[in-house]
């Protein structure tokens, strides 16, 4: 049986991991490769590097981080942030990364998803969606809007519709970031998770808001998500990956056992 995945997300700014709250106020959280190694040892199932600067110089630093990670950590990892062209995809995959996530570029040029899927396969095209609740939607019928440029620019595109379109265009999975919940550690937006997960057949990864193991449990059960992304909860060791995994396993969620006998 397919295990539910726990993915550690490292936001990288000029080669250092930082952690933001509601996409703002970055705080230093360490060296990316060192953290990747640590989370791998703790039993995380996958890693994501997100380049939050994405300037031209930062791009080469990010590729170097990805290449160093590939030398030491033998679990799947994704690189995202500022990906604009097929050449960007190629450069990232060449480092040893398994998947590339796109957000702004995909919304501006949806055909980019198809072009990347045709060239590299859907499995390495991750559609990242930054979702914010619409204030004007009724409480019992919530709606979410897609944002671009690191959560700064509203697009008026509906999140559920965009997720469905992304799947049709060839995306292999969706990372669903809740801007409202990001960094709050108050829990994922479960309604959002479920609305999107039920609307597509590709895996949906819940992101934004994890603060305790219970939050992951809800996203992976009620939220119908295949995976949950964690950042703050893991960086500051409030709840090590192993603790989160035993919490989930005790409640019947299929997870990958972390311990490998000596």
């Amino acid at each position, binding site marked *: 049986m*397919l295990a539910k*995945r726990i993915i550690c997300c490292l936001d990288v700014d000029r080669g250092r991991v930082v952690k933001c709250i509601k996409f703002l106020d970055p705080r230093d959280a360490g060296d990316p490769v060192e953290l990747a190694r640590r989370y791998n040892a703790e039993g995380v199932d996958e890693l994501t590097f997100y380049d939050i600067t994405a300037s031209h110089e930062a791009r080469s630093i990010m590729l170097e981080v990805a290449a160093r990670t590939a030398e030491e950590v*033998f679990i*799947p990892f994704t690189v995202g942030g500022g990906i604009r062209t097929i050449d960007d995809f190629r450069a990232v995959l060449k480092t040893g990364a*398994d998947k590339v996530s796109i957000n702004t570029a995909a919304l501006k040029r949806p055909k980019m998803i198809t072009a990347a899927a045709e060239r590299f396969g859907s*499995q390495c095209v991750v559609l990242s969606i930054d979702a914010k609740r619409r204030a004007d939607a009724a409480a019992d019928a919530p709606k979410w809007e897609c944002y671009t440029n690191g959560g700064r620019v509203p697009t008026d595109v509906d999140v559920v519709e965009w997720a469905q379109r992304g799947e049709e265009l060839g995306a292999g999975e969706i990372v669903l970031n809740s801007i409202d919940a990001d960094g709050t550690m108050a829990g994922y937006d479960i309604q959002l998770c479920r609305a999107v*997960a039920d609307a597509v057949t590709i895996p949906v990864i819940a992101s934004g808001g994890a603060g305790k193991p219970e939050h992951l449990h809800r996203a992976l059960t009620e939220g119908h998500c295949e995976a949950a992304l964690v950042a703050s909860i893991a960086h500051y060791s409030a709840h090590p990956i192993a603790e989160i995994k035993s919490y989930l396993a005790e409640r019947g969620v299929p997870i990958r056992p972390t311990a490998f006998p000596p």
Partner: protein
Amino acid sequence: MKPQIAIIDYGMGNLRSVEKALQRVGAQAGVIDSPEAAAGAKGLVLPGVGAFGQAMERLSEAGFDQLVKEWVIADRPFLGICLGLQLLFTESEEFGPVRGLDLVAGRVVRFRGPQYEQHGDKPGLKVPHMGWNSLNVTKLHAVVENLPPDAMAYFVHSYYCVPDDADWTTVVTHHGMEFTSAVSRRNVFASQFHPEKSGDVGLQMLTNFVGLVDAAA
């Protein structure tokens, strides 16, 4: 220096991870971009991610199809990964049917059936089958020795292999149905999962493969 374990580069991705993982477990592994460069190698690795048809074309263009055929028929240490497993089969239905290397009689087919569809409030199983799933060893082989009983490995695929002769099957995995997730025969081993992305379990399998290469050398 010529690599002892040659990894075939035919433009279908994922090579760096395979190379680094083999080097991590102590192998003298390197990527080759022509069949001639395999001279002197004791082990051959066929990785690959992407579409079956395109992969067959690229393998043939570079002449790697003959290399793989001769290598496998001669029972020299061989490791196929993901598409590198599927290509060994007679044919795949992916954008096809498309002919494969026909070293293992059988077909490559897509996951399909009601279990992969949504029913009311109950979501169906996802395709592609992507993520960590269990390995159940049904036939002992050197590559899958010394694994923990609850071992899991990383998968990413929408098609799976169905060998005509069940004796090829060495590991099975369940995703809506039981399917062959690795085949083996003597010095030949090929898996649907990615050992180079399967953490410690994967590194153990690569260590085992290197042992197989050393033993055969």
